[in-house]
């Protein structure tokens, strides 16, 4: 079967439309089908990155339609990362950060993005690296001890509570020493 539009190439796209009970068949070759808009090339190339950057653009507008409009309506962004030179506009376009400093630079605008990607979460609750985490591990440890202390006091287990209190003191001394060492 030949393409019914150009009558040159074999028809590869076959479409049957039924409108108000009336059947209409269309047989087109690849290029005619594209010209007539039966095959949307844009859609084929739509990737995760596009989706992500689309999400960033939705900022404040709340309309899903904007997802596909690109950045025409975008205001001029002067925000630029001092670490790698990435601008906010470039960040939203690529959907990727350029360096660790980007997180500080764009910090104020990150919460809505992270919420969307991580089911409403914006803060880390997982592993803390031993060195890069600094005294965070220690501070978290003290926090845990304090909770334990409260529990013990509530349960009137004062002997145990005294032990935990001493442990907290030791940990706090350690923390202060660390800080002293830094300055």
């Amino acid at each position: 079967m030949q393409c019914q539009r150009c009558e040159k190439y074999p028809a590869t796209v076959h479409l049957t439309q039924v409108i108000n009970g009336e059947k209409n068949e269309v047989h087109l070759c690849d290029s005619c089908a594209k010209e007539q808009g039966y095959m949307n090339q844009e859609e084929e190339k739509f990737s995760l990155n596009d989706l992500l950057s689309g999400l960033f653009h939705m900022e404040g507008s709340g309309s899903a339609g904007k997802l596909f409009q690109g950045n025409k309506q975008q205001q001029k962004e002067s925000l630029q990362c001092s670490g790698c030179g990435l601008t906010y506009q470039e960040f939203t376009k690529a959907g990727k950060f350029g360096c660790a400093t980007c997180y500080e630079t764009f910090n104020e605008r990150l919460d809505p993005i992270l919420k969307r990607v991580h089911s409403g979460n914006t803060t880390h609750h997982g592993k803390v690296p031993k060195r890069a985490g600094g005294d965070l591990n220690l501070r978290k440890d003290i926090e845990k001890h304090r909770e334990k202390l409260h529990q013990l006091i509530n349960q009137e287990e004062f002997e145990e509570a005294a032990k935990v209190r001493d442990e907290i003191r030791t940990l706090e001394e350690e923390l202060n020493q660390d800080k002293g060492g830094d300055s």
Partner: protein
Amino acid sequence: MSLEKFMNEAISPWMRHDGPDSDIVLSSRIRLARNFSSQPFPTVARGEPLEEVLSFMDEHFTECSFREYEGLQLVKMDDLQPIEKRVLVEKHLVSPHLIEDRENAATIISENEQVSIMVNEEDHLRIQLYFPGFQLDKALEQASQLDDWLEEKIDYAFDEERGYLTACPTNVGTGMRASVMMHLPALALTKQINRMTPAINQLGLVVRGIYGEGSEAVGNLFQISNQITLGKSEEDIVEDLHSVVQQLIEQERKARQTLMNRSPVQLEDRIYRSYGTLRHSRVITSKEAAGCLSDLRLGIDLDFLKDIPRTILNELMVLTQPGFLQQYAGESLDPEERDIKRATLIRERINLEDDN
């Protein structure tokens, strides 16, 4: 290269061991995304910073050992032929992304191929650790220790509020992607998997084909992994994944039992037809081969077929991929030639079992 030796290379040493529930779960993997705090990420960096990351890794970790992960070796992508790079992807040692013309890209692989640390992928480091069967907890524990060991020398990009900083906002926080590769022929055959996928997605987990993002589920192999990396601890993420996988295992076993009870002859017929196809075909596409191999593996799991090792599915799935076929042939092949070569290779491999 002898066929047997080639087989030895197609299947990573760790795959030879059976893990828990390995009739359904082929492997468990933990991947951690990490970056150097001092260097721009590979998403924007060109030249020097990436070179520095690569030479740092080369200097500090080549020929090192961490526990049983011995003989770490750095393989630069620039030193490999296109077919060799494909083979690494097909063996899941690197991501398809790493071999796409990235600057200073490399991977550090342990001798047993359980550890693979990709360098200068989207992030400076992507630490991967594989275990056979269903062993997510163990994989997490060991991956975390490996991570600590690396951190002794590397200054990681980490922020108290946001966690481990990554190039893509979808990885920030734990930087962890935990995944399992599952063989679910009965759930696929009864089309139950189509109904389960949306429910799994709602739990913040993703179901996809074995070669990652956007890949089709060939051979009834599915990869299930966590989507969310921020706001939950590594242990909680793994636990959530664990419980879903546990349910999938139960459902798959139930579906297999139902098939056995309701239509045992039809099932046996299907398995033996696929076995016949693999044994005798002269031309076979990778898609047909994958389908038949899935049936064959099901036949082994259900005791219809004896004396064929279970690992034949993992092995032949990798072996019949385009990169491996061409590596074996020692030349590049067009798709038609590949289909012929694939059929030959499968026949030879199955005959090898007969001789033993």
